[in-house]
């Protein structure tokens, strides 16, 4: 049984069909890439999976459960986490606080405990903070934990988003253009981080990316989207040579 299953998903905005008949599945611990020209509908697919858009038809199943149209926080609690194409950090909070909001997802002492400051509360706070710091260590940001997140350099902000996403201890993580705007060194670091996510943390990863160097390097399987439809699917080597893919990308990206 696959971990994630999208069955004939179609999404419409007003009269415009952004995604049509998207059928796709992912197995546990796979690393799959989703590529396509700008506006192809990639982020829309992510948004459907994570509950931000309700599809007009089709079903999304995760770990055997039908999650179509469920609210984002419910889906997050089931074990799907994500980063955003345009960085969405909690800007005025510190790096550590950003991650703690995610790491606390599985440990909410009740209001009474919080207000009355019981020892249970302190134990939970400790757990939450430790979990957060571990996530920061994966991406190498633990030294900056008390920095205000909006003051971080761009590359670190992207890493922070990833740390935050893994702090919810998800089964599946959706990364939306994590390498966008990164220089070559940062991109190599990112590739390393993604490998750690898959190999050490056992995460299943679905990745949207324009940087072909990243995609070709780490993805086991690639899905190509254009105008909301899947036009090709296969290993990086297979995709590289498919004429439909080259045509869709003509003039917009370099492959290899």
């Amino acid at each position, binding site marked *: 049984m696959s971990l994630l299953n999208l069955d004939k998903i179609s999404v419409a905005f007003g009269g415009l069909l952004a995604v049509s008949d998207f059928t796709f599945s992912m197995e546990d611990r796979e690393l799959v890439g989703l590529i396509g020209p700008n506006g192809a509908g990639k982020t829309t697919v992510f948004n459907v999976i*994570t*509950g*931000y858009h309700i599809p007009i038809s089709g079903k999304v199943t995760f770990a055997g459960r039908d999650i179509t149209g469920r*609210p*984002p*926080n419910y889906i*997050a*609690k089931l074990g799907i*986490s*994500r980063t*955003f194409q345009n960085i*969405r*950090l*909690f*800007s*005025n*909070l*510190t790096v*550590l*606080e950003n991650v*703690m*909001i*995610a790491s*606390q*997802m599985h*440990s*909410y*002492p009740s*209001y009474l405990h*919080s*207000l*009355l*400051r019981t020892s249970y*509360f*302190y134990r*939970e*706070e400790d757990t*939450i*903070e430790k979990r957060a710091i571990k996530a920061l260590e994966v991406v190498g940001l633990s030294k900056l934990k008390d920095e*205000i997140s909006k003051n971080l350099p761009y590359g670190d902000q992207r890493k922070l988003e990833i740390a*935050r*996403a893994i702090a*919810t201890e998800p089964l599946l993580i959706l990364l939306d253009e994590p390498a966008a705007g990164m220089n070559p060194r940062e991109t190599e670091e990112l590739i390393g981080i993604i490998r750690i996510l898959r190999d050490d943390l056992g995460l299943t990863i679905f990745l949207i990316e324009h940087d072909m160097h990243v995609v070709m390097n780490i993805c086991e399987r690639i899905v190509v989207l254009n105008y909301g439809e899947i036009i090709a699917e296969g290993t990086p080597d297979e995709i590289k040579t498919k004429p439909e893919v080259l045509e869709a990308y003509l003039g917009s990206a370099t492959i290899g």
Partner: protein
Amino acid sequence: MLDRLGKFQYPFLIICIVFIYGINLLSSYINPYYLQIIIFSGINIILAVSLNVINGLCGQFSLGHAGFMAVGAYLSAFLTYYYKVPFPIALIAGGLASGIIGIGVGIPTLRLRGDYLAIATLGMGEIIRVVLFNLDIVGGARGFPGIPKYTDFFWVYLIVMLVLLSSYNLLKSPQGRAILSIREDEIAAEAMGVDTTRFKIFAFVFGSFWAGVAGGLWAHYLQFLHPSSFTFMKSVEILVMIVLGGLGSIGGSAVSAVFLTFLPEALRYIKVIFNTTVDPRMVIYSLLLILTMLLRPQGLIGGYRRKVRDQ
């Protein structure tokens, strides 16, 4: 600040209560004029901090706080006047009623964006006022006189302590962080598992509960209630306090609440000196609002900054 006490919160609270009680015993020796200002300062601290939880911490721009205050004021007065209910119970009942109204305001406004939310809450505050205006059992347009004077220094500052303590404890907790995340980026908060609906409603309930209690304190000090005390202007007065003190800064709102309670009295002296009948208070308020937003939007006193957990 207060949260740094950690496990010492309880002893600290007890010491404070004893201290407040002691001062209360001496209160008859304090000049009644100053005592009044001190009492109003306390009530304003409660109002400011409670509004700050909704506006500053949760980022929901609520402009109807006077309505919550009114509900608590009228209900508690109604209970003590007609049914001789003991004061603490009347206060709590007033707070609970306001809290329920808070749910009533919070739920429909969940989907609304910033400015729409502001107007909706303004509208709800006004509806509450108009309803009270037409409710003859609590005096309606003629007002509600003869409320027993139960409020004193002890009650006011006991509740100030409770509000400050609970707000700080809330802030530095998972719930507090969740509330802040809603302010910062609601969409990302949802993706991280935060049930934004529940927390927004909680923020409204928390804020409205304490506003209701403040209303009860107010009613049992002035001994008279009239709906015209709870207009949009009143909501704006409280808004000025939290803007000045820094949206999201609990300590800041407390300080500016005190400052803005003393300020009109100080201005009274100006009137005497210049021998005018003009009351420049609201003009100064509005200038303060404008200048603060233009020059130092994070507030004159506090700011967004606070630490993540107890030391």
